């Protein structure tokens, strides 16, 4: 009798558990396309490329295991590696701050604009919609030595314009300017952040007689912190992955002055068909970007405030 009494609820538990499993499984089923996509198109290739980086891997012909040889010869022997990395670092050092400061200024301008702000928001965002190839075509018209728009404008004021893309000392600057063309995306993120700052903060500050610059410094920038840090990291990543514009506008020239690290990887893979070496290069780039992002995150913890975050008071921090 006891047995039967016990058996009854047991069935029930199992049934309930089954229902629970179904409930827990459902969300995973819903996102399964993404999970499958991630496994097959991201994680899979990722592991595959890591394996490749330890091989001498020509696309046609024999593959041989070489251990760390690809990494060794890249660091020890290949001048192209150092040069392309240096160019990329230079590019990032100029591009990233410019991208953020200019986006912020534009966002502030639009945030405070009272006249046709919707129109200007579209105008400023529009260029970042243009795809890489079209963008490059436009800039090659602008920069052309003899028939370019830029040098035509300069000639109107009596200046004999330089050879923007043909001069090794100018080409990198030209690429940076062309890359900044797409800052509309960053601007939009910061603008959203500005809109989200509660008005009460400014009202309270104004009532207390806090001047505008101080409001900017002590309300706007701190409240924008998470957005700034996000755009900072994404700008670093996109700076290191810069390829399209340089590949199409200058092909890395003149004299390799715009030969970015991503192009070095691209050439190894699709020009020399040295897949293992290219994979090794990609992993070096991954390591660099990861390190930079971690450094930025760690450093930002000191000044970025997330809503809902509880911070120790100053006294506690000293203790």
């Amino acid at each position, binding site marked *: 009798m006891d047995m039967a009494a016990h058996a009854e609820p047991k069935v029930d538990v199992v049934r309930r558990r089954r229902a629970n499993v179904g409930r827990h499984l459902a969300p995973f089923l819903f996102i399964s396309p993404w999970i499958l996509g991630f496994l097959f198109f991201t994680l899979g290739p990722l592991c595959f490329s890591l394996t490749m980086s330890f091989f001498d891997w020509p*696309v*046609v012909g024999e593959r041989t295991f070489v251990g760390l040889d690809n990494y060794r010869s890249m660091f020890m022997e290949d001048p192209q590696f150092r040069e392309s990395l240096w160019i990329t670092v230079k590019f990032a050092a100029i591009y990233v701050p410019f991208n953020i400061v200019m986006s912020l200024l534009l966002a502030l301008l639009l945030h405070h604009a009272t006249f046709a702000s919707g129109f200007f928001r579209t105008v400023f965002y529009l260029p970042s919609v243009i795809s890489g190839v079209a963008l490059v075509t436009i800039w090659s018209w602008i*920069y052309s030595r003899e028939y370019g728009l830029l040098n035509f404008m300069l000639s109107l004021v009596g200046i004999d314009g330089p*050879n923007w893309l*043909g001069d090794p000392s100018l080409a990198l600057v030209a690429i940076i300017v062309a890359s900044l063309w797409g800052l509309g995306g960053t601007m939009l993120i910061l603008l959203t952040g500005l809109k989200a700052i509660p008005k009460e903060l400014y009202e309270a500050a104004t009532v207390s007689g806090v001047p505008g610059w101080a409001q900017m410094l002590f309300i706007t920038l701190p409240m924008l912190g998470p957005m700034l840090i996000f755009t900072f990291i994404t700008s670093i990543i996109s700076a290191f992955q810069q390829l399209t514009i340089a590949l199409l506008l200058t092909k890395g020239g*003149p004299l*390799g002055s715009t030969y970015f690290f991503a192009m070095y990887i691209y*050439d190894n893979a*699709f020009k020399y*068909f040295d897949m293992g070496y290219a994979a090794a290069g990609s992993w070096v780039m991954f390591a660099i970007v990861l390190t930079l992002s971690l450094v930025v995150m760690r450093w930002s913890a000191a000044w970025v405030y997330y809503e809902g975050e509880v911070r120790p008071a100053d006294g506690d921090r000293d203790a």
Partner: protein
Amino acid sequence: MPDMKTTIIGSLLALSVAGAATARAEEVLRFATWDTGESLAIQQAIAKKFEEKHPGVKVQVEPYAEGYDQKLVAAFGAGNPPDVMYMWNFPQYYTSLMSLDELIARDSAEIKPDDFPEGLMNTARIEGKTYGMPSGFTTQVVFYNKEMFAKAGVEEPKEGWTWDDLRAKAAKFRDEAGKVYGFAVDAKPDPYDFEQFLWSNGTKYISDDGKEIDGYMNSDAAAAVLGMFADMARKEEAVTLHLGDETGGDTLFQGGKIAMFQSAMWDKADIDAAGFSYGVAPLPTFGDRPAHSALGVSAISIAKDAAHPNLAWEFVKFFSSPESVAMRVNDLPVRKSVAEAKGMTKDPVYKPFFDILATSNTERHAYLKNANWSKIQDNLARAIEATMIEQGNAKAHLDDAVKRSERLLK
């Protein structure tokens, strides 16, 4: 619902059965080419003729166009290469290609190997084995605008002219206001084509065994060639192309902005279309040495793992037959007999292309000698560009290219 399901499955089955049936009825030969436009149309016409002669065979022409190498490499990497394909980069691919020597020997009555110039066959050979049949070629020449020459009262170039002659003529066309020049030098020439000037001046990029570049690529004779072009740019005898500007020499020549233009068959159709009267001169010589030309050769090869190897060889044979060769009007006939039958070896426009072929048999292109050549070549290309930008210092830049490339020679 179950009814729906069976219908769908049923129709899917029917479709796949139908697909299998058509595949069985027609043998499909895959043929990959990099050509587009008119040249592609010619190849499709040749494929059609082949289908007519082989009932039940379908030739699937796959025009990969831009990015040909990437797509071909991907096909080989995936183990699914086309049966027959256009080929030039034999060092890169030869391990995956079928060696044709036995087949050529077996069918020599049809092929007539002697009808193909030796220099063209050499571009398809690696370590003495033949991996492709030449299908079209071009050598390099100098096109000149007869109307501009007449107007400026300059004597037209003639056979046996030298680079000094060219420079003297070019200087007379310089017109600052109209941006008109006598000649154009490319700051970023394809190093493959550029080697012709080294050959013409008695040197080459790399030793014949493919192991030495020091003393070749940076020899005095090589530096003299490069220095001469830089000098032409400095003295404005020539406009410099591709220094941050994508306007090509073809555009300038067709627009009457340069009087002489060094190029090859690939520009002839457009020059014809530009509608002015032009002449064709051979490449100038350095002193009394014979001029050599780079050979632009397209060949067709068979994949080692071709799905239909026998059919593929039949196709290659047909592609190399006098009938097909004669159809290829967008480049030059690879069969001597066809060139002669068409009277091209005597026609003043075509004669220079064929004349120079005879002296261009003696050298082999650098990429056939060293597996790492494409990397070395990029260092070389940079030295050439640096020289053109600085308009001098050829020797120093070539030395630098050699130094950067030494590690790639092993």
